[in-house]
């Protein structure tokens, strides 16, 4: 019967206290659910540089509209970033895909790319002022070769030599990275 009043006809209606209790319970439950929906979800983002889309989403309130609070931190190095992601210090990172390849599974965590921030990457090869390689760059800077023309004439001896330099440079880079990984497993 829980708080009800029984009339002669046998029909039961709730008393006022019971109605108020139910209404309060309903209100509290609704408020709690609404509070959970409104609760900000913190996302720890780690980057080399914050991208323009993130800046706009923050500046225009798009993250806030999704109830997301982005805590963006800069990283001093790939190692700090990837290790931090693997250990759960960061939730999302902005990084080179080579880091995803090198670090997925390395410290236990499987790492996946989910979106493209910047499309094309280019490394600029630069030499010091007094170096031997500087002579090559000096010769090249005297007769600059547009990349498209360079690609079209790729079978020229000059291009073959340049391609060889690129290959050597990339090989050296990759070998040094491999050595670094071997030294710091």
């Amino acid at each position: 019967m829980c708080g009800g009043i029984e009339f002669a006809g046998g029909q039961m209606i709730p008393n006022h206290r019971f109605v108020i209790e139910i209404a309060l319970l309903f209100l509290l439950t609704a408020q709690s659910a609404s509070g959970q929906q409104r609760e900000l979800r913190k996302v720890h983002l780690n980057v080399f540089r914050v991208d323009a889309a993130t800046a706009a989403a923050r500046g225009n309130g798009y993250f806030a509209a999704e109830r997301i609070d982005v805590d963006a931190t800069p990283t001093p190095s790939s190692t700090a970033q990837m290790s931090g992601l693997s250990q759960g210090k960061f939730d999302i990172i902005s990084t080179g895909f080579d880091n995803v390849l090198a670090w997925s599974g390395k410290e236990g965590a499987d790492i996946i790319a989910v979106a493209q921030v910047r499309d094309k990457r280019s490394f600029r090869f630069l030499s010091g002022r007094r170096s031997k390689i500087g002579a090559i760059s000096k010769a090249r800077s005297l007769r600059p070769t547009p990349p498209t023309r360079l690609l079209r004439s790729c079978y020229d001896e000059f291009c073959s030599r340049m391609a060889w330099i690129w290959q050597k440079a990339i090989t050296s880079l990759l070998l040094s990275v491999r050595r670094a990984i071997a030294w710091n497993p």
Partner: protein
Amino acid sequence: MIKGESYAGILNPPFDAKALAAGMRWIGDSKEVLPDYPNTVLATSLEWADKNRNTLIAYLRAWLKGMSWVKDPTNRETAIKTVGTELKLNPKEAQESVEELSKTGNLNLHGLQVVLDLRNQFGFKLTKGDKLPVYYDTQYFNAAKGK
């Protein structure tokens, strides 16, 4: 290089511009031999993505909205100003930040394969193997786009 302790280096923007300004010489650009070498990606751990699926999708939805807004030509000037203010960049740097941003956010799978192929070619032993699909997942991005 500036101190003369090394002959040459491979630099990303914006460090290449700083090196040039410091008197270093430009030799070339990797685009000449690797025209489709992709730049930055958003990445996360598979475990976090699984446990926080809704948060990740909501994050990407907001981020994509930011990307569309920035890339909309009608917003260009405002976008450069907003990005400059948010990231404390001068107008030229803010413009570069806008221009380098992907137009769609879609993963460049061909480019990602190029990066992987290069590692495989040079004999890197990757912990998760030499096949591309284990290194990316488009389901969260597609959900954010409403696909």
